[in-house]
């Protein structure tokens, strides 16, 4: 007889015990789609600040990751684009937020390397551009590549459509984006799910993130849009 899996469902306060000032945090989302809005709001309420954020962008003004921008909680961000949020652009120009740009596909590969035990990746993206500065160029079979190093975070905040109580996850449409890759690349993974179901309710072949990657689950809210 197999044992009953332990539930990882916790209160938002219990989840916030693992979010602290100065941490490196991966926050998924494309513009404001697939962003863990519930967890972001809770971090702001708790007073978490000085964040080193790894994300694709910063949502839009005052929404999603834009809430952290508005409340001055981010000291540095690694991302591919800030253009969708005018407030981020203003704060970067004013020197209030440091930004390190990395091409979107490279961002994905660096996180994958961080989560999959790979020491770096070779990509042709960025060759001959400012992205090449300070990086090793490696030639393989006559083709040149940039060596890009892994990204890893203390905490990843994930937005899922459905989760079972042990953290097996399913995402919806383009809200999937950076969620599954970020769930692999952090020491501690907190999920907010729009719907939490009993273990065994999700079809094993449809699960997009294996529950063994997830540490905690809280009840989330549906994606709000842009």
């Amino acid at each position: 007889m197999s044992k009953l899996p332990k539930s990882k469902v916790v209160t938002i306060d219990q989840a916030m015990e693992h979010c602290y000032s100065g941490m490196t945090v991966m926050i998924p989302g494309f513009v404001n789609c697939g962003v863990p809005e519930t967890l972001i709001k809770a971090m702001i309420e708790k007073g978490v600040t000085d964040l080193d954020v790894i994300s694709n962008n910063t949502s839009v003004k005052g929404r999603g990751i834009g809430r952290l921008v508005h409340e001055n909680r981010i000291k540095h961000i690694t991302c591919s684009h800030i253009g969708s949020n005018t407030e981020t652009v203003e704060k970067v120009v004013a020197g209030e937020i440091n930004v390190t740009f990395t091409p979107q596909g490279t961002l994905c590969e660096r996180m994958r390397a961080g989560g999959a035990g790979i020491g770096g990746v070779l990509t042709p993206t960025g060759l001959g551009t400012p992205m090449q500065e300070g990086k090793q160029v490696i030639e393989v079979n006559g083709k040149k590549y940039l060596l890009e190093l892994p990204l890893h975070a203390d905490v990843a905040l994930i937005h899922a459509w459905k989760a079972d109580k042990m953290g097996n996850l399913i995402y919806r449409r383009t809200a999937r984006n950076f969620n599954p890759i970020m769930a692999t690349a952090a020491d501690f993974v907190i999920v907010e799910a729009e719907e939490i179901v009993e273990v065994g309710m999700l079809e094993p072949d449809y699960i997009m993130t294996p529950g063994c990657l997830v540490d905690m689950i809280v009840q989330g809210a549906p994606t709000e849009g842009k």
Partner: protein
Amino acid sequence: MNAKELIARRTAKFFKDGDVVNLGIGLPTQVMNYIPEDVDVWFDSENGVVGLMSAPGEGQPVDFNLVDASGFPGTLRVGGCCFSSFDSFGLIRGGHVAYTVLGAYEVDQHGNLANWMVPGKTCAGMGGAMDLVTGAKNVLITMIHCDREGNSKIKKQCTLPLTGAGVVTHIITELCVLEVTPEGLVLRELAPDVTVEEVVSKTEADLIIPEKIGCML
């Protein structure tokens, strides 16, 4: 027909049935309106979808979980599919996207492209552009031939920081279609009523003028 419509109409004629195509924001998006009746292309959006269609019409349900590359709700055609950003950029970088269509600040005769930053000005980041131009099989640049001061945007050598080196395959402007070849920029087509002399006078880059030049329409 205005300049942008001409560019969009001509660009749409590049695609073949079944091609996966990524359209950038702005003028490239307009290309969607001119796909020939007998050609069925699949639109890729780098946030993780192939088969993305335009915004939901009046009365249609809006799903905020399905957005385009600008973050606005889209719709999915039958057979369309969604995947992670990681898979998305695998498709893009791996050469599985037939065409990417983008705008440019500058392009040069070596196929170099600059479209993401101007030193001294606020930079929004490159997003997915560097991966798209590196990985897509064909990189089409759609733009107005000259800048507002009348200077050629098609250079001998780009002066701005590059998005990709040697990546552009074609340039489509309101005056002409240029192909980037190992020998240099070849003038393939002219817009109606535009002469070779006019294109040459408005282009800083060296042009190869073949005997036969087609018409953009």
